[in-house]
């Protein structure tokens, strides 16, 4: 039991029923301390609390000023009683709030005004020696005495003058219960309690001599903000784990790529709209080196006349265009590089990449010019379209989406091309995630040497990450609101 509670119940044992004010008086504790102690004691049924509310007239600050200094009309009465008659100008200069004073004196019919002079009449003379009705109301309210019935009109006038107002007052009365009495009878010692256990007490064994205060464990404590990974990186770590568990090797590579790797090796014709300024961020830098001559020649032929069974895009391929550096627009550039390095002995091979890509996009709540992609390729002589669906379905189910939909799509570098949507029960609709397919022979043959099935996907996953964290605006990903980063829940998968 807290010290305060002991003091309150001890006082109540002496006088069995007390108002809150009386308890404050008897315990010398403040109002909050007594209220808290009473509430705790009542919880344990040691006291019972009775609460009554009543409407009371209370003085406003202006009202209490006048209750002490006298109403303006009283000042005027006193002045007029002394001087009999006074010029209006003098009256105004001698009385504060002269207008209010005069209004009430005239209303009561105490004064006469003639030729710019003010004087008390007979009624006024008599009244000046008595207590005015408004004064009676003020002193009754101040003294918390009941108002006589006959002063009702004047009380209303006082409220109208904003000298008093009606307030709902709470009256708390506490009585000690039977249990309370028994508790006191069993004995409560009002001894000093200790808060913090000190090293001194521990070492010397002094702790045995102290009584430790019982803490309110439900009270709030200061928040602690530990160090944390960024929420997006937490999700990325999980995505990485999924692919590793499925036997995929990680690919990494530069953010800056030549157009050759970003577009040409992926059979994207040089006139393709994706290669224009409004889609791709180009760099103001020197041209980049192309890979070995043989590969460049094979890629050129794929564009100009096609690979073995292909017609190609039939145009003149420009080597200089391929040297232009770009901020990679997709992680598929890494897949192309991996295929170029891969030896036949290494088949079947499965690779994934997680990385930042760049687009010339105007930023809004669903678009960013930088975002992360999850990329994957499977090189396997026996791979087919169903396997592509299998890998994607497995991945998205591990991301918490069991219902995926695929639709035909178009990309220059895949044929079978498809678009993946996942069903979001929260949104009651599909979220579009991006493309997948089987690399075209015009991509695979120059890089790998033959037309082997290469399943491929490159998809943004920002939207489903945001859904997990219940954010609607993709811009949150790079906003770095420190408080939000501190308070956001962990990625729990």
């Amino acid at each position, binding site marked *: 039991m807290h010290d305060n509670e002991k003091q309150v119940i001890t006082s109540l044992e002496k006088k069995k029923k007390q108002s809150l004010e009386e308890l404050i008086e008897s315990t010398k504790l403040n109002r909050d301390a007594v209220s808290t102690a009473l509430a705790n004691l009542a919880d344990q049924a040691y006291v019972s609390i009775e609460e009554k509310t009543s409407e009371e007239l209370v003085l406003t600050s202006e009202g209490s000023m006048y209750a002490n200094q006298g109403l303006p009309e009283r000042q005027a009465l006193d002045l007029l009683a002394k001087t009999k008659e006074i010029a209006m100008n003098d009256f105004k200069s001698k009385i504060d709030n002269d207008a209010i004073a005069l209004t009430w004196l005239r209303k009561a019919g105490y004064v006469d005004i003639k030729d710019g002079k003010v004087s008390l009449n007979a009624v006024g003379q008599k009244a000046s020696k008595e207590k005015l009705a408004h004064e009676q109301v003020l002193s009754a309210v101040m003294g918390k005495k009941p108002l006589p019935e006959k002063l009702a009109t004047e009380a209303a006038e006082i409220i109208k003058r904003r000298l008093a107002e009606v307030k709902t007052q709470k009256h708390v009365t506490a009585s000690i219960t039977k249990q309370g009495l028994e508790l006191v009878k069993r004995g409560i010692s009002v001894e000093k309690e200790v808060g913090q256990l000190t090293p001194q007490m521990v070492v010397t064994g002094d702790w045995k001599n102290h009584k430790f205060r019982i803490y309110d464990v439900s009270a709030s404590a200061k928040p602690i*903000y530990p*160090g*944390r*990974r*960024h929420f*997006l990186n937490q999700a990325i*770590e999980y995505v990485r784990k999924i*692919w590793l*568990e*499925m*036997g995929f*090797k*990680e*690919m*990494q590579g*530069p*953010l*800056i790529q030549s157009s050759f790797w970003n577009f040409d090796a992926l059979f994207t014709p040089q*006139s393709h*709209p994706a290669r224009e300024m409004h889609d791709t*961020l*180009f*760099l*103001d*830098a020197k041209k*980049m080196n192309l890979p070995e001559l043989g590969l460049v020649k094979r890629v050129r032929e794929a564009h100009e006349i096609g690979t073995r*069974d*292909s*017609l*190609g895009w039939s145009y003149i391929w420009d080597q200089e265009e391929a040297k232009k*550096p770009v*901020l990679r627009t997709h992680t598929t550039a890494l897949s192309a590089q991996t295929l170029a390095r891969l030896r036949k002995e290494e088949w*079947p091979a*499965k690779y994934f990449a997680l990385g*930042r890509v*760049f687009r010339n996009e105007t930023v809004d709540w669903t678009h960013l*010019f*930088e975002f992360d992609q999850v990329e994957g390729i499977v090189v396997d002589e*026996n791979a*087919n*379209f*169903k*396997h592509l*669906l*299998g*890998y994607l379905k497995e991945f998205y189910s591990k991301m918490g989406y069991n219902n995926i939909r*695929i*639709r*035909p*799509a*178009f990309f220059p570098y895949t*044929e079978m091309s498809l*678009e993946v949507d996942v069903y979001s029960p929260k949104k009651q609709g599909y979220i579009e995630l991006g493309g997948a397919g089987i690399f075209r*022979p*015009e991509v695979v043959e120059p890089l790998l040497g033959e037309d082997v099935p290469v399943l491929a996907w490159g998809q943004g996953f920002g939207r489903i990450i945001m859904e997990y964290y219940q954010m609607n605006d993709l811009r949150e990903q*790079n906003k*770095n609101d*420190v*408080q939000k*980063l501190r308070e956001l829940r962990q990625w729990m998968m």
Partner: protein
Amino acid sequence: MPTVNLDKKRFLKYLDRDYDDEFLKERIAMLGTDLDSITETEIIVEAFPNRPDLLSEAGMARALRGFIGIETGLPAYDIKKGNWKVSVDHKVKKIREHAVCAVAKNVNIDSAYLKSLMQIQEKLHVTHSRNRKMASIGMYDLDTIKFPIKYTTVQHDFKFTPLEATKEMTVKQILKEHPKGKDYAHLLVGDEYPMWIDAQGQVLSMPPIINSAETAITEKTKNLFIDVTGLDGKVVDQAMSIIVALLHDHGATIEQVNINGAITPNMAPWEMKFDYKYINKFLGLDLTDKEIKKHLERMRIGVRGDMAVVPAYRTDILHPRDLMEEVAISYGYENFEAEIPNVSTVGEEQPATVFQRKLAEACVGLGLLECLSFHLSNEGVLIEKMDREPRPLLKVTNPVNKDYDTIRDLLMPGLLKVLSENKHHELPQKLFEQGTVVDEKMNEVTSLAIVSSHATAGYDEARSMVEAIFRSLGKPVAFTQDTKPYFMPGRTAQIAYQGEHIGYCGEIHPKVLNNFGLENPAIGIEFNVDRLLK
């Protein structure tokens, strides 16, 4: 991708069946276009760039009729012999070499159809023809033209009245003043300008810029003369095939035009050899030859033995793989079963990934909060606010906006910016970021930066943190006195690993704090992570 608004009424008329919106929505999407919405009067779709033949009501209806089985197989195009002669001047060879023509008679034109013709022309210009560069289409009221017609060149002072103008203009004026002239003038180089002119000297058009006012088609037009010119013969032929097919499907009679002895339009389908087994192998299916044939026919492709017969308007068939996709679309993407093959491979992370994760864990252990900023920043943040000497940085040629026109060469400025944007939140704020920074020579390096801001931030804290991180990595680190404009003199250390300088730490200079509008002291750390991994 281009969005087209198809007239629903006419589309359903071509389709010759009335289907509800839900059915159309689902089938159109599964045919291979991004369906946007279907309204009372319109079907709004985003056609993929490989299928410009789907950009019109007739084209979409033709494909869908096959896909849902109303009419399958190769569509037939009956092109009548005509007595129309066009001569091409050899002078166009250097400017806009390829030209094909066609005549369409008894075209049922109303205001809606006129709008639709304008739309398909515009969409073909933007996508298939790469903004009129590869090809451009002209359509004229045949009855305002006197044959034979010439495709020739003129000088800049040649005059005619272009569309959207009220009086004659010279070629020079058109290219400088006419809205279409200004948009496309860059497609014409040299002092000769291509021009279609009829037997009476009446101008038809100046490709690829603008048509003449006199020969323009209106709601009263019955018969059309069409030309397509361009730099790429294949693109030109394909554009003409798409136009002719949709006019033919609309009920027009198409007639041939003789161009210097050559007969156009050429609507003859072409053949591609394919292997039934190849299709089954890649799709993971076991379809019979007959089934594969049926699927191709549903996609309006003819089959003769192991030859696919492809309509002239299809621009996307480059390889038998493209036929395979046709089979898959007809089979239905939704009907493929997902399957994970029993292939054993070993997963493997990159050593850099593992190392960077360990570093991040060490930082989190120090109570640091990880931030993620954009790689794109600007010189104001990277140089000016950091009080660094101006230096060349890697710039984007076509930035999204000026705030993001430079690739970051340091992470610390980004973190100080984060502090400046979070002044209203409780201190201390201790942040870290790991990521790629790039120098002006395009060398990419992984960097780690830390900032800590609070009333008592000081050098000791920076040094303790660096030491704690290196201790956790089991690597040695050394500190020597140095200077950096963004650190306080005398409180700046160079961080060295195995005798090699890898970064800096110190107390952020009050001038830099002022530049970022920060009110509390801060420390900063940044070093190259890649060198530790070597």
